């Protein structure tokens, strides 16, 4: 449920006016022949900030604030300060197109973007690519597994790999007979194929597979069906409200007991934690809910810097703990650092020039200095050295489709809503199950 179509038109109108004046007054722009620009750099966070998926906007803004804080403390990029700008894709492609084109037209020096979630990536990715803006995305669309767009870079696994990771974790915990309950739309399209492929290979069975509508008034009958299947665990994917309603009814109709739940790290949000603890109690949520997804080590220097920056910024400190365990925001953080270092290497902030340096920032090279944050990377480059950026999500190797992904991990909530990691799953094992 985005904005009225006509409203989109209005925002486009405003944008056009502003865009015209901006073009008249500044010599900047992304496509000028002079490979320099004046003024601050803007990092766009393209994500839903309204509508049912609005939580993703919040989750992806935070790493942008953290990364840009650190970059600015290190003196900015080539003398430019950098700031974040929220670009609302509303989760709906028809709304996203004008919003994103408006942002491209009206945002001064929009030199990089992060985000572009699965709902709208198929339509927004081509827009930023056409504008020659290098982009680190966090979507899981299978379609981009063989991406050919030059300005597109992905640091997260595709959705089917996530599904396989669910299966690995469930079987590892001894949940051989699982019931799959996916909310219509979320997960059912993306995660299910990987899950279906992996579960039998691991010796487990998918008992009941149920797709439920979002935000219904009652799920009693659906719950009764799941109870009748006697699952060891639920493989789950649904929004906080749907989850709360379903699990509350489950508990009431199952004499107060609930099976374990394996769900995606997408649900490592205060909303999900709050909604669920509110209705089934904190004990269950902290002991029996596993959140599986792309992950990273929390003992590295890069992580310490990331966590420190999240905690230091008043805009992000409240969710710093939760974010510490979630893959996509960390990918966005790393992505901004990678693009910033590519700008330094290219000696320009213009996308069409610095894009080719992205692989050089992360690729392993003999004699290169391994750096874990922007400041040390900048110092090494100033010293005339080669660098390899190894960030929060670890070493990154882009394949020819500009895709890269690291390991997976399972997390649990702590009583205060923060997350802690309880196990890891190697990326190669997951990919082998697809």
């Amino acid at each position, binding site marked *: 449920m985005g904005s*009225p179509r006509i409203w989109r038109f209005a925002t486009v109108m405003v944008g*056009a006016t502003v865009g015209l004046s901006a*073009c008249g007054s500044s010599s900047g*722009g992304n*496509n000028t022949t002079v490979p320099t620009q004046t003024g601050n750099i803007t990092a766009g966070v393209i994500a839903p900030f309204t*509508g049912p998926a609005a939580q993703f906007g919040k989750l992806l803004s935070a790493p942008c604030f953290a990364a840009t804080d650190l970059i600015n403390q290190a003196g900015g990029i080539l003398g430019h300060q950098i700031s974040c700008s929220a670009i609302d894709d509303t989760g709906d*492609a028809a709304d996203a197109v004008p919003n994103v*084109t408006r942002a491209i037209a009206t945002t001064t020096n929009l030199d990089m973007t992060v985000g572009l979630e699965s*709902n709208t990536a*198929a339509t927004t990715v081509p827009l930023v690519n056409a504008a020659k803006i290098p982009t680190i995305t966090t979507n899981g669309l299978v379609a981009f597994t063989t991406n050919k767009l030059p300005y597109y870079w992905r640091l997260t696994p595709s959705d089917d790999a996530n599904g396989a990771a669910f299966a690995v974790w469930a079987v590892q915990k001894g949940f051989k007979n699982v019931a799959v309950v996916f909310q219509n739309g979320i997960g059912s399209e993306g995660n299910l194929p990987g899950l279906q492929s992996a579960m039998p290979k691991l010796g487990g069975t998918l008992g009941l597979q149920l797709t439920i509508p979002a935000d219904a008034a009652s799920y009693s009958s659906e719950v009764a069906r799941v109870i009748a299947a006697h699952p060891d665990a639920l493989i789950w994917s649904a929004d906080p409200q749907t989850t709360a309603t379903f699990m509350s009814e489950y508990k009431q109709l199952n004499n107060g007991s609930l099976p374990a739940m394996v769900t995606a790290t997408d649900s490592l949000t205060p909303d999900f934690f709050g909604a669920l603890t509110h209705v089934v109690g904190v004990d269950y949520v902290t002991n029996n809910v596993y959140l599986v997804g792309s992950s990273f080590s929390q003992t590295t220097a890069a992580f310490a810097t990331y966590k420190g920056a999240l905690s230091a910024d008043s805009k992000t400190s409240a969710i710093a703990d939760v974010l510490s365990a979630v893959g996509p925001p960390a990918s966005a953080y790393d992505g901004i650092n990678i693009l910033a270092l590519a700008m330094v290497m290219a000696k320009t902030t213009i996308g069409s020039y610095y894009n080719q340096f992205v692989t050089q920032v992360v690729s392993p090279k003999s004699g290169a200095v391994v750096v874990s944050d922007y400041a040390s990377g900048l110092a090494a480059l100033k010293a005339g050295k080669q660098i390899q950026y190894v960030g929060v999500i670890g070493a990154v190797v882009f394949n020819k489709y500009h895709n890269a992904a690291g390991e997976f991990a399972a997390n649990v909530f702590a009583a205060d809503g923060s997350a802690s990691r309880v196990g890891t799953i190697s990326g190669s094992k997951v990919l082998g199950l697809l």
Partner: protein
Amino acid sequence: MAWEYYLVVMLVYLGTDLLAVWGLNLEFGVSGVANLAYIVVVAAGAYTFAICTLGPSSGNGGFQTYIGGFTLPFPLALLAGALAGAVVGTLIGVTGLKRLRQDYQAVAMLVVSLMVATVVSADTGFLNGSAGLALIPNPFADLDPEVARWAYVAVVAFCCLIGFLVLRRFTTGPIGRTLRAMRDDDTAASAAGKNVIGLRLVVQAVGGAFGGLSGALLAGFIGGWSPSAWVYIETLAFLSCVIVGGMGSDRGVSLGTLIIAVLLLQGVQFLPQISSSPGLSEDFGWIILGASTIIFIWFRPQGVLPERRPRYLGKSSSHSPG
């Protein structure tokens, strides 16, 4: 240039909005059929265009599943979109066959809108469920991107021109008069020998074709289409253009499409973006839209540019209807 692409987006959205508003005006403003399921015909056009231009569903590695996949050329796919709008519009019109109070019919259509959206979202094999369809091919992908953009604008402009000419054939002259008579009092129109049910179905088919074409053009431009793009309240946005602009007046509703935009534009300029809740201005968009609809129904039901009736001069003079 970025702003130039922006202008292109603006023009394409204006064009597709105009087509949809004209179609709804023919149904509601001229003929009195409050089609609260209008957005469904737009969706029908968009989906049909998508499955006509896309290749078979099996060819993309399970990324999305859908029926059809005909790889038709662009103009044929546009026509198919318009045709789908006409067919779906006629089917929606079936809810009007029973001689019910008009508010009942409106509610029945509202329910149709919700039901179709629920079914399409729930069935992943039909039109890829709530994820919707993406990667709809751009017809001018082979051209230089800047030329391709303006080529699309030209296509939209051409469709609007043809659309307006077709629209005038229905809203002026004896048929326009008959439809307006049906709107003012459909019982009396029946008593005057007008086949009200038949006329309604025709109007729903023609209005549906407008909506279908609008949806097809939009889907072709943005390259994607999903259930979140056609929730039932989108119809209200079009309805608001009709009511504010002037029910039954072709020029009025065209102006209404602009006025709503200008009104909201003023609103957004005075609303600073609050960083803690960036969605607020979007919410205000709906509030302003609803409020302007009610305000016009209360204070100026005839709209900004009311429908004008032709004068039939004396015996020797001819007249100019419209």
